[in-house]
């Protein structure tokens, strides 16, 4: 997703008392100043606590000293379960060990401060909540201090706070003992946040708060939800996207022990059973005749040819400057290349699932979702309910990577349809095969570039054509992501590339074909293909100019200090230019995405066509790092995710059907493939960026640039697979 919208992030702050006692801090953002996606219900602007959902707050202090932090975002591995509480603990002067964390329900109060919908994505949580969560902590502290001052009959200024206590001289009162009194006080109009020099928690490597339960098996993911009466459902879906059920025979399925019902739903035929095993056997026993629909001829090879034809013509302009033709005619040399990247599945470890219980005027949903906002609306629409009648319980996500943030709410809508048709509470569970074949992929892309260089080897004319499906088309984000037919996420990393912007004559254009394949953002969205293309092209230019890859980039990026900082730190740590063990070669790539700047340097050997990545050195400038250890973990994660895709993963189509089915043929990273990883953080006071995604884009080109250094062969399509064999 693109960077933040230009909207006000000023918040109104208010404190309200819970009927059970204790102190609750809620924020609402004034509607008039707030960006909202069309159709998203707005927060209640009323100051009355009774009109807010319960629990409505970001922070709650109970009389027993329990401090509860409500997460407006979903924990999917990125450690936000720890980062947001760190912000509150810092300002509130409490120890993290006193904090309990909960996922917030779906409610207008938790709408993303920039994206206009309740969502976890775009590597945006920390920067978008940095003020709001610190303010929640600071405001609460101010109220507790006032309450303590009143109780002790001293001036508020004389009170200090430490580890959950207000302290005056030799007297100390716990926050729990002050909570009720604090809740009755008038809310201050402003609060003062701590100066960075006074931070004790922010910026310090901090252990994950969700670690213990994820180590002892007690953490509850969507898949683990259970209550009396909950049945398991599996849905047989069309083998071709866009197909539908012609006829089906459920007689054999119904004979399987444990199968309770077979019902037709919009997406196919659902088998409802006592458990997964019975549901799966029941589904295997279904006899279904499908109308395969218009996509029955879909074929990856044919699609690449089609894209190639499109790329031969100019698409809709996405960036333009100078006089391309004139500059091209004066260029001393031309570099021309085509790059192709496949469809990719997210394949999170936890297969998709969603539990639904429908009653007369309400619906409860338990699932791991990144996008409560659209899920709630979709469920409400199916059931004819108001959004607020749909409760969403967010559980831990067994990985998201974008798949669990679907504007079409596919897996939630389907579960609601199944529960509605069956008339009982159900948990729909996807098998791994369902997940691999079930769609919403990173779209396939083809890029074609023709670059004219001057006598020094620097680009003077850059013609670039991209071909690929739009992710935003048909979603609530369409209106502000697609301008004049160009989806900004299709060309992000190209149209705004410093290399292209720095080339005086350029034209970036885009073709947006429709193929019938459902597509979605996949970790780092457009950057997942554009960085591979751009950083490979620049490497081609450096080679054509007979220049060192690092030096050449330094020259092109001389006016981009944050790129340079990440380049220089990684180069220093990787000892760029110094000898490597025999047969090992380096490749480098740098890319900006989601407001952060990352360099990856790969050390690679190629032996009899087999590529081995030995070491990855990563440097990032993301501005302030709230938790340096979780930042490092996200870089390690991006390297693994990016390497798997670079080396092995692809989704292909034949006769309209996905050819892969499980981890034996949709190959991902495994332990033996994992190189040594080193992560370095640029000490930076620049604007905060994200960390969940920006590590990934430069991974693949760093590896393929190293392969070029090793073999002289330029890898121009992914995955690398056995191209060197």
């Amino acid at each position, binding site marked *: 997703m693109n960077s933040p919208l230009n909207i006000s992030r000023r918040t109104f702050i208010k404190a309200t008392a819970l009927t059970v006692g204790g102190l609750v801090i809620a924020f609402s953002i004034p509607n008039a100043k707030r960006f909202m996606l069309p159709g998203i219900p707005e927060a209640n602007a009323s100051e009355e606590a009774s009109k807010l959902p319960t629990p409505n707050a970001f922070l709650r202090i109970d009389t027993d000293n329990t401090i509860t932090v409500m997460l407006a975002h979903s924990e999917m591995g990125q450690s936000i379960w720890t980062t947001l509480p760190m912000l509150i603990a810092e300002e509130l002067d409490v120890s993290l060990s006193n904090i309990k964390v909960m996922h917030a329900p779906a409610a207008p109060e938790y709408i993303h401060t920039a994206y206009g919908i309740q969502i976890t994505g775009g590597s945006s949580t920390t920067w978008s909540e940095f003020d709001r969560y610190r303010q929640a902590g600071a405001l609460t502290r101010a109220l507790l201090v006032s309450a303590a001052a009143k109780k002790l009959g001293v001036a508020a200024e004389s009170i200090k706070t430490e580890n959950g206590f207000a302290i005056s001289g030799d007297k100390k009162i716990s926050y729990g003992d002050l909570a009720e009194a604090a809740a009755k006080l008038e809310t201050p109009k402003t609060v003062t946040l701590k100066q960075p020099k006074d931070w004790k928690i922010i910026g310090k490597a901090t252990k994950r708060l*969700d670690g213990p339960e994820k180590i002892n098996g007690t953490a509850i993911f969507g898949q683990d939800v259970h209550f009396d009466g909950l049945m398991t459902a599996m849905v047989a879906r069309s083998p071709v996207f866009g197909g539908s059920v012609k006829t089906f025979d459920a007689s054999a399925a119904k004979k399987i022990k444990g199968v309770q019902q077979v019902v037709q739903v919009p997406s196919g035929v659902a088998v409802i059973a006592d458990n*997964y095993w019975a549901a799966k056997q029941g589904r295997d026993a279904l006899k279904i005749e499908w109308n395969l629909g218009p996509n029955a001829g879909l074929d990856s090879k044919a699609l690449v040819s089609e894209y190639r034809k499109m790329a031969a013509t100019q698409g809709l302009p996405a960036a333009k400057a100078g006089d391309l033709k004139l500059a091209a005619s004066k260029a001393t040399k031309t570099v021309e290349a085509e790059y192709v990247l496949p469809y990719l599945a997210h394949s999170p*470890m936890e297969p998709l699932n969603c539990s639904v219980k429908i009653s007369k005027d309400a619906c409860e949903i338990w699932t791991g979702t990144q996008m409560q906002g659209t899920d709630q609306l979709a469920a409400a629409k199916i059931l004819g309910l108001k959004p607020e009648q749909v409760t969403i319980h967010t559980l831990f996500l067994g990985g998201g990577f974008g798949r669990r943030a679907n504007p079409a709410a596919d897996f939630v809508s389907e579960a609601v349809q199944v529960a509605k048709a069956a008339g009982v509470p159900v948990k729909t*569970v996807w098998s791994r095969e369902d997940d691999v074949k079930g769609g919403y992929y990173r779209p396939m892309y083809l890029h074609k570039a023709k670059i004219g260089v001057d006598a020094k080897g620097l680009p003077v004319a850059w013609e670039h054509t991209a071909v690929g499906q739009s992710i935003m088309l048909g979603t609530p984000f369409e209106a502000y992501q697609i301008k004049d037919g160009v989806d900004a996420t299709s060309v992000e990393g190209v149209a705004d590339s410093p290399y292209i912007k720095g080339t005086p004559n350029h034209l970036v254009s885009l073709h947006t074909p429709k193929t019938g394949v459902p597509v979605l953002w996949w970790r780092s969205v457009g950057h997942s293909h554009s960085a591979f293309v751009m950083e490979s092209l620049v490497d081609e230019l450096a080679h054509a100019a007979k220049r060192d890859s690092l030096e050449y980039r330094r020259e092109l990026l001389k006016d981009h200090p944050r790129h340079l900082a990440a380049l220089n730190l990684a180069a220093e740590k990787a000892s760029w230019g110094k000898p490597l063990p025999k047969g090992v070669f380096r490749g480098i790539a740098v890319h900006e995405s989601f407001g952060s700047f990352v360099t990856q340097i790969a050390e690679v050997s190629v032996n009899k066509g087999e590529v081995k990545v030995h070491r990855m050195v990563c440097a990032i400038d993301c501005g302030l790092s709230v938790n340096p250890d979780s930042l490092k973990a996200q870089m390690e994660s991006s390297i693994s995710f990016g390497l798997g895709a670079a080396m092995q993963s692809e989704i292909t189509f034949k006769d309209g059907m996905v050819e892969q089915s499980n981890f034996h043929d949709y190959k991902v990273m495994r332990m033996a493939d*994992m190189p040594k990883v080193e992560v370095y953080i640029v000490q930076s006071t620049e604007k905060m960026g994200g960390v969940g995604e920006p590590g990934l884009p430069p991974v693949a080109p760093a590896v393929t640039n190293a392969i070029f250094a090793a073999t002289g062969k330029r890898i121009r399509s992914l995955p690398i697979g056995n191209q060197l064999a």
Partner: protein
Amino acid sequence: MITLNINGKDLQLDAPEDMPILWALRDVVHLTGTKFGCGMAQCGACTVHLDGQAIRSCVTPVTAAVGKKITTIEHMQNDKVGQAVQAAWSAVDVVQCGYCQSGQIMAATALLTSNKKPTDDDIDAAMSGNICRCGTYPRIRAAIHEAANKLA
């Protein structure tokens, strides 16, 4: 009805003979620490111990466990090696989304029970059947070495 010994207790289960141990644990006994990831022994999320050996419970029918001992993640805190592995996982802060980690810990515990000082190659060989999409592999490797050192 079938009798299975799970975490030291004999339990009577109403489960068909071909039901994989995974679904008996998850859907019949409601021990949900053991995870479903692939259903065909490709990812290791469902790893449990059968008489101390790491097995893929998603492809092992309940009948294969009759007369044997099934041990799951929920029991690891009572196992000396399991305790050390869990402590190392915490010290290194391995987990991210966490979904695969029960299986990773069960595989690592089986490895360290049979091989007290595994090399990186031993770890690669023993752990490559366990996929982690979050890419916690470098930390898993570090945590296994850490646990081995603590147990030595």
